[in-house]
């Protein structure tokens, strides 16, 4: 029983990470109807930015919440810029192109990021410096809740709530939702679509960057291909929750995290990754609109 609780805690933190990344996928899909293959790699960049920054500032000699936040905020900003550039250079020119073209471009962008990262950072995994010391917060028998768990969940939650506020209670959010419905009409109504889309990309990228830093802090091993599998899993999570739907992405992330943890714990660790694909394929075949998504029939 205690073991189960521990797995729940672990699964929840893992799920929060997936939720952060999934939100980026869902935001971009909602607004552009495009699967941003490169999103998982932005997460990877976030982790590496954190790595190099910590090394540059020598932060491992003074681990603290402050150090952590410096790394977090800087990384999020850099990723936001990266997100902006990717959209501007690779996706905007293809706004009116057939979907296949945009999809192939997204794949190309993803691979480009991965292999350039291998070139620039070197393909070997690196150890993320400890910017925050691990401390156990609670302990009931075998179950331990440490500050890492708390950090992941609290940072994720805060960011998600901020995003929710942005989407539901600001003019920007309204504009974003309008563009998701009908981009042509939105632009005819005077909404600066290009700017809103850019900002959306930046937000999604920032969240991915945050996830990267969190992961780097807690599971210190990072490498240029670290975004591939989590990216796929987060995308699956977004689809399960209903792609285009924000609460869905969060729900999907949590489900993905929990089920992965449970499968690894109680069935077999080598099937962790296969689970994600299995779930994705299952959902796509059974209910492609996911939990909260809308069924969008082709207009004839």
């Amino acid at each position: 029983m205690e073991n189960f609780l521990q797995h729940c805690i672990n699964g929840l933190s893992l799920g929060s990470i997936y939720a952060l990344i999934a939100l980026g996928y869902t935001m971009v899909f909602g607004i552009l109807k495009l699967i941003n293959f490169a999103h998982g790699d932005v997460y990877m960049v976030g982790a590496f930015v954190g790595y190099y920054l910590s090394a540059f500032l020598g932060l491992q000699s003074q681990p603290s919440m402050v150090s952590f936040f410096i790394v977090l905020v800087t990384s999020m900003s850099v990723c936001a810029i990266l997100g902006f550039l990717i959209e501007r250079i690779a996706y905007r020119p293809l706004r009116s192109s057939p979907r296949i073209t945009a999809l192939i471009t997204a794949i190309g962008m993803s691979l480009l990021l991965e292999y350039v990262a291998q070139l620039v950072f070197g393909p070997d995994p690196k150890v993320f410096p400890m910017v925050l010391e691990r401390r156990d917060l609670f302990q009931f028998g075998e179950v331990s809740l440490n500050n890492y768990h708390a950090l992941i969940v609290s940072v994720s939650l805060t960011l998600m709530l901020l995003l929710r506020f942005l989407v539901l209670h600001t003019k920007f959010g309204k504009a974003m939702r309008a563009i998701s419905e009908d981009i042509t009409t939105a632009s005819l109504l005077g909404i600066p679509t290009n700017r809103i889309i850019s900002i959306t990309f930046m937000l999604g990228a920032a969240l991915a960057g945050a996830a990267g830093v969190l992961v780097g802090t807690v599971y210190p091993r990072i490498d240029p291909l670290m975004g591939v599998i989590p990216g796929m899993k987060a995308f699956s999570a977004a689809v399960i929750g209903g792609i285009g739907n924000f609460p869905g992405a969060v729900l999907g992330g949590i489900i993905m995290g929990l089920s992965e943890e449970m499968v690894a714990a109680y069935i077999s660790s080598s099937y962790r990754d296969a689970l994600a694909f299995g779930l994705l394929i299952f959902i796509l075949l059974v209910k492609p609109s996911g939990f909260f998504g809308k069924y969008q029939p082709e207009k004839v």
Partner: protein
Amino acid sequence: MIALAAATIATYLLTPYISSFYLQMLTLAGINVVLANGLNLISGITGQLSLGHAGFMAIGAYASAYFSLQYSDPNYFLLSLLLGGLFAGAFGLLLGLPTLRLKGDYLAIVTLGFSEMIRVLFLNMGSLGGARGLPQIPHHTNLTWVVFAAAATLFFIHRWMNSYFGRAFLAIREDEMAAQSCGVNTTKYKVMSFSLGAFFAGVAGALFAHQLTYISPSIFTFTKSFEILTMVVLGGLGSLSGATFSAILLTFLPEVLRPLQQITHIDLRMIIYSLLLIILMLTRPTGIMGKREIWELIPWPKRKA
């Protein structure tokens, strides 16, 4: 058909005169021609973007290798090749079924997922070597076989496109709903296209296995699928001559680049491929040939319809 026979015989006769370096390159090129055109059938002609071609290749490779390890007599090679193709084709059928409900992006992701699952399957199959791979596959492949296979592939696809089922493939690519309105059973033909494309990938995989004499799951990754996709897209989705040309081009490219490379071989090639693809999509998404064939551009007298 004459061309097919001529090419094969010519290659058989010429083989002893070709240096071993070129022999190896041309063999690889031929295999890539089969791979590229198989994918072209699915993605270029029928319009179903498939990101899992390496998976079919893997099935063909493993199936035929396993057979050859039991019956290593070179006279059985043709059988081994066909077996690889048929197994892969059967899986192609399986993969074609989800197309009933999925379109475009989603289908592409599922094909990727399938391919990865196949790879994980082979990774965990101890009887086929698992992570350590399958060594000591008899080296049956030679240039003649490869040229024969490549020519046969082109011949088959060309003839196929001149039939009503080939045209049905095109109709599905152009507009699926309109195709249905014209009486085309789109699901049946989509499944057929996956199955055929997979068959060719399987044969290519078999040829590959008997050339390298060693296969492992790490060969058949998404990167491989991406390489094949790049060939088809560069040549022009839907063009046989385009796919063939760029398959050959991209086989020789790494060799041309070798003097430029000081860092890891694979990385630079992949960077170039991904850049190439992005730039291509931004500037000339239809590839080199677009949807046309090179013989349509040559103004020779048209045969009466």
